[in-house]
C-alpha cells in the first residue's frame, strides 16, 4: 500500500470511529471487491458470500469503536469476515471445516512424491483454461488451505498480517502455506496429468 493510500485509510477509519457514514461508504468502496472475493473463496456459494459480505459491514459498524487504531485495519476487517464465515460454515457445512488428511507437519512434500514417481509435471495448458483450472482446484482444498492461499496471493497480505487474520503463529502460517501449495499442485497434477505449466510461464 502506498503512503497516500495508507494515510487515506487511516483518516477514513478515524472518521468512521467518530460515526461518519461517508467514511463507511469510502471503506466499503475500497474493500468491496477484495472482501467479497475472500468470502466467496471461503464459502463458494454466491448467495452465502453476499449475505456474509453484508453481515461483515454491519459488524464493522458495531465494532469500530473497539478497534485499536494502532493496529492495521485490513487484518482486522478480514478477521471479522473470517469469523463470520467460519461460524456460518460451522452451522451450515461443518464437514467443510475438517482438516484434510496429512497435517501441516507432514515431512513428505509433493516435490518428494514427484521426484520419486518421475511423472511429467503440469504440461501444456492455455492461459485462459489455466485460470479456470486453478480456481476449480482451489475450490477442492479445505477452508484452512484456501484461505491462506487467497490471503497471500489474491489479497497480497504479508505473512504477519495473515497470522493476525487467522490468529495463528507465523510459523504455522508458513507451514500451512507450504502445505496448501503442495496440495494445490498435487490436485492439479492428478486432475491434469499431461499439462505443463512451465511452458506458459
Amino acid at each position: 500500500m502506498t503512503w497516500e493510500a495508507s494515510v487515506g485509510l487511516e483518516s477514513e477509519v478515524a472518521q468512521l470511529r467518530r460515526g461518519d457514514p461517508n467514511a463507511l461508504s469510502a471503506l466499503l468502496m475500497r474493500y468491496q471487491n477484495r472482501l467479497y472475493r475472500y468470502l466467496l473463496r471461503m464459502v463458494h456459494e454466491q448467495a452465502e458470500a453476499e449475505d456474509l459480505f453484508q453481515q461483515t459491514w454491519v459488524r464493522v459498524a458495531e465494532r469500530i469503536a473497539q478497534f485499536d487504531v494502532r493496529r492495521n485495519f485490513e487484518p482486522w476487517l478480514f478477521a471479522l469476515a473470517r469469523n463470520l464465515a467460519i461460524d456460518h460454515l460451522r452451522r451450515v457445512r461443518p464437514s467443510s471445516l475438517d482438516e484434510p488428511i496429512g497435517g501441516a507437519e507432514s515431512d513428505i512434500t509433493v516435490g518428494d512424491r514427484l521426484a520419486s514417481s518421475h511423472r511429467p509435471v503440469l504440461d501444456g495448458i492455455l492461459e485462459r483454461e489455466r485460470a479456470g483450472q486453478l480456481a476449480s482446484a482451489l475450490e477442492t482444498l479445505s477452508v484452512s488451505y484456501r484461505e491462506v492461499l487467497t490471503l497471500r496471493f489474491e489479497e497480497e497480505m504479508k505473512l504477519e498480517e495473515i497470522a493476525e487474520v487467522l490468529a495463528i503463529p507465523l510459523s504455522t502460517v508458513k507451514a500451512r502455506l507450504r502445505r496448501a501449495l503442495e496440495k494445490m499442485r498435487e490436485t492439479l497434477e492428478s486432475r491434469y496429468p499431461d499439462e505443463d505449466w512451465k511452458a506458459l510461464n
Partner: protein
Amino acid sequence: MAPKLDSHEKIYELLALAAAGALTPEEELLVARHRETCKKCSAEMERWRVLTGGLQRLPTPQPRAAVVERARAQAEARLTEEIEHRWQRAVIIFLVLYAWILTVVTWPIFRLITAGLLTRFGPGFNHSWFLFAAFTILVWATGGVAAVLLGRHRQQGRRMA
C-alpha cells in the same frame, strides 16, 4: 544426521515458500545461491512460480451493485444506532452524576425548609438517614419520570421524521 541448511534436500523443500515470497532474507540467499548451480532446483522453482503467479492472476469476482448498496444501507443504520447508544450512555452517566450532586447540594435546603414540619412527627424526631433516603428517592424518581417523558418525546419526533 539432519541435512545441512544449504543442502540440496533442504533447499528443495524451501522452493514452494520461495516462490510464495515467504522466506527470510537469509533463506532467500541460500536458495538463490543454490539455484545458480542446481538445474533441478531451478526448474522446480519455475514450476512453483507458475503456480503462484497463476494464483495471483485469478480473476476477481465482484459483488453485485445491489448487494453493495444493501450492505451500505444496513451498516449505516447500524452505525447510527451505535452512535445513538454511545450518546445515550454518555447522557446517562452525566445524569447520574448530576443527580447525585443535586441531591447532596439541595439536601441542606430541604432540611432548612422542612425543619419546622418535621417536629409534627414528634418532638424527638431526628431520623436524618431515613429522611435523606426518602429525599433521594423523591429526587431520583422525579428525574426518572422526566427522562422517560423526554425519551418518549424523542422517539415520537424520530417517528414523525
